[in-house]
């Protein structure tokens, strides 16, 4: 799978309270949650994602609460992939489980500027900055998690596995 979109750049330690503030946790509908994606940074931030985006972030992206609402809100807001220097582990698992690709790439913050066009090859672990013409290679997502992503998330993956049994 190759994802191609405009980069929205964020810093280190972006926490889930910022990605989706606690006051919206009574919402479960992705189309309602997406309105509030990244609202902790500034109201209306989600509009930056509307035409498709790759979030490029620093260390420890998604730290804090286990709220899956955070990953759901980003995906529903048209974030197609999150590339970060590193992830908080619960967010990483949540993202893969709901079918939002999450790629760890040390050094990515220095290679991409906000608004650059990037393409992310999930199988090869190759991130190309189409604006500057540079390429970063990283560890691809582990194979068993790529399968989960290809199936569209853990639920579809599990259904498929059970159908084959």
């Amino acid at each position, binding site marked *: 799978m190759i994802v191609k979109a405009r980069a929205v750049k964020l810093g280190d*330690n972006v*926490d889930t*309270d*910022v990605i989706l*503030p*606690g*006051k919206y*946790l*009574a*919402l*479960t509908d992705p189309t309602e949650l997406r309105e509030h994606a990244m609202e*902790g940074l500034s109201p209306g931030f989600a509009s930056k994602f509307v035409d498709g985006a790759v979030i490029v972030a620093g*260390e*420890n992206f998604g*730290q*804090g*609460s*286990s*709220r*899956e*609402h955070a*990953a*759901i809100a980003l995906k529903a807001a048209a974030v197609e992939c999150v590339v970060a220097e*590193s992830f*908080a*582990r*619960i967010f990483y*698992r*949540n993202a893969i*489980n*709901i079918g939002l690709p999450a790629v760890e790439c040390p050094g990515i913050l220095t290679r991409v500027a906000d608004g650059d066009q990037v393409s992310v090859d999930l199988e090869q672990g190759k991130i190309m900055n189409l604006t500057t013409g540079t390429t970063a290679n990283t560890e691809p997502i582990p194979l*068993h998690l790529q399968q989960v992503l290809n199936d569209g*998330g*853990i*639920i579809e993956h*599990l*259904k498929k596995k059970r159908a084959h049994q």
Partner: protein
Amino acid sequence: MDWNRSEPVVNIIEKILARASDREQVRPGEIVEARINSAMVHDITGPLTVESWKKLEEKKVWDPDRIVVVFDHFLPPPTEQAAKLQKMMRDFVDEQGIRNFYDIGRGGICHQVMPEKGHVHPGDVIVGADSHTCTYGAFGAFSTGIGSTEMAAVFATGHLWFKVPRTIRVNVTGSFAPFVMAKDLILQVLGKLGVSGANYRGIEFTGQTVEDMSIGGRMTLCNMSIEAGAKTGVVAPDAKTAEYLGASSSNSFESLRSDGDSAYERTIEIDSSTLSPQVARPHSPDNVAPIEEIPESRVDQAFLGSCTNGRTEDLRIAAKILDGKRVHDHTRLIVTPASQDVYQNCLEEGLLEIFTQSGAIVTNPGCGICIGIHLGVLAPGDVCVSSSNRNFVGRMGSPQAKIFLASPATVAASAITGRITDPRKLS
């Protein structure tokens, strides 16, 4: 560190994961498929779990007696939407025959209720759809937070994959000075490790200070391990664990003990006897300094409660400081016992009367204030000193509010003076 060692030197986390995945031994970095002993959801993460579960088109959960449902975030529901989510969960609990269900007035904060009601045992593998699930490491369990959709998969299969973490040991010696508590210790650990310092890792707390510590204090340590990114925090079970759990002996826990120094990625040594009360400044739990270095900032709201510090012993030390005194005129003190049982204990000990007479408000158990939903949301410009676990931007309400994390003793002392105050100065 020699990870290719020939002699198996393993720690408690590796022992638990090996047992749960029917292996002789597991090593850091390996992926294992572990049996789950208990799976917990609450009223925020449960509804998403059930929605995902329904997509699986299965009729029955893998084992209704291993699933625990606790209402604590919307306690009681502040909005119609929240009430609807709880109604949906009640229907699910009925339909699936889940008996371990703690509705309003029956439980309280999930991480307090789980051990109180006997859902945690040494050596267990426990998952909860809440990041502070790591709290149960205080009982020698491997417990960790997961998301809702992953929980739906657990509801269906009773298993989950884990990457065996490397483990950092925090070895603590010495005795705390009066009014210095487990919270001050874990804040200092967070200051040393940073918010991502234990990412993908386990933390084991060892040493005389931890052995001497109450179960409640150990819960505080393990609870905030997630604030360093840890997969879990753990303390070896002992006679105190056995006593809490009502077990006749702790002999059976011996097989869980870590084998020795080389079972860890590294060890952090801390002398607790020189520790001052610690404070995490806005807006990160690792932005920690000893209280002597904190400017005497005005406090608008003081919060005593949460899964970190809402237990009877926490409220007891705060009541001792507040007894016969008044909360400062420009400060509001909100006290939230962690569970119905804690509430009852505090009532019987006369602690609640001390709080109300001091000018504090005592709320029902729940998570609402810590997560900025209800029962004490902060206004722009508010400064709050809180015994809870996170001080991220907007965590307790307005993004323009400031949150300082501290111990129950520091919260109580600060409520009296209306400024962030060293509890040792008031005693």
